[in-house]
């Protein structure tokens, strides 16, 4: 639906032709989406504990990018995007609280991560799973056990410590050591920065 002046989404020009209010060209937004959308989505899942909500808020953040993203400096656009996403997430939480859903869920004991199938597929790569399985097998048994109990069984560290009859600090240390090894691989091979 292009006019004589061109589609504002394509040209980055507003319909009234005011150049100083030019929005980001759609191609730029598209590239930013390709580069940052998955990481932003993962971040928002961490904040909101809900894949559907995170997806919705991520879309809202990119909508804001199209509207006012030109006001951000190019070198800080990622930080800007995450900040907008975080604010949108906080606004979402407040709306949820107003609708009767308790804010306490977010601040005291947070529920396990919830992800819809689409979000999960977006964030989980098959090859990463295969690699992580190999790394898991290389961990010492006591670390493997804690990881399994926490990540699969969904037990809290306190419950795991109680069941193993060891101090909570011991369980936390085992988990921390395991996660550090996995995160080192993550940063080195999976998603080097």
């Amino acid at each position, binding site marked *: 639906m292009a006019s004589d002046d061109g589609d504002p989404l394509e040209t980055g020009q507003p319909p009234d032709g005011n150049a100083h209010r030019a929005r980001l060209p759609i191609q730029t937004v598209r590239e930013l989406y390709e580069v940052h959308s998955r990481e932003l989505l*993962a971040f928002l899942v*961490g904040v909101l504990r809900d894949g559907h909500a995170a997806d919705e808020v991520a879309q809202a953040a990119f909508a804001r990018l199209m509207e006012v993203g030109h006001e951000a400096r190019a070198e800080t656009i990622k930080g800007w995007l995450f900040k907008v996403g975080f604010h949108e997430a906080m606004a979402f939480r407040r709306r949820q609280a107003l609708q009767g859903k308790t804010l306490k869920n977010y601040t005291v004991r947070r529920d396990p*991560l919830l*992800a819809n199938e689409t979000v999960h597929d977006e*964030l989980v790569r098959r090859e990463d*799973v295969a690699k992580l399985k190999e790394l898991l097998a290389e961990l010492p048994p006591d670390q493997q*056990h804690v990881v399994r109990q926490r990540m699969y069984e969904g037990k809290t560290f306190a419950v795991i410590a109680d069941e193993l009859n060891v101090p909570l600090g011991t369980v936390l240390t085992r*988990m921390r050591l395991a996660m550090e090894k996995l*995160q080192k691989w993550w940063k080195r091979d999976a998603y080097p920065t």
Partner: protein
Amino acid sequence: MTGSFDQTLNGDSLNWLAVQYVLGELSESELLAFEERLETDLAVCEAVAAAVRLTFILQVAVVDSPVVPAFATNPPRVLPDATVHSFKTTPRGSWLVLAGATTAAAVLLAAMSLGPASSPSTQLARVDRSASELVSLWRTGSAVAELDIDDADVELAESGTEVAVPDWLFAAVSLEQSNAAGNSTDER
């Protein structure tokens, strides 16, 4: 930054804090302090994103990984469906089972066909005439001459031993008789 969160955290410490945040293991004050930093520190946001993705992948990987031997008084656990699934018969396995059963049945039939000449299977294989043809032969009295009958069967017949006549033969003969009666009526 307020609360108990150390703003100087970075590297492994930050990653670990992000994991605890994602897993919901921070205290209320730690959580509020952490979220304050999320608003201003991109590195903290990135750590949370990485922790979420790693957690998701780990959850999938752990499900498919072999269970680590328990080293405490843990009760035995039921294997998840995903693990049990690997022990179920696959579609290819089903075809192999079917093929094996078919082969066994074929071998069994072959072995039976190699038995005595008067065995039921031999008799069944030899009876390939239609019922109407058999009735016709029976009616004309040429059955013995035309049917391929073993000597053993002839001896059986001559010995006077009672032979059970199948119901279908009685039915066929009755039908033939009633048809004949009908034809003679028409001719009149």
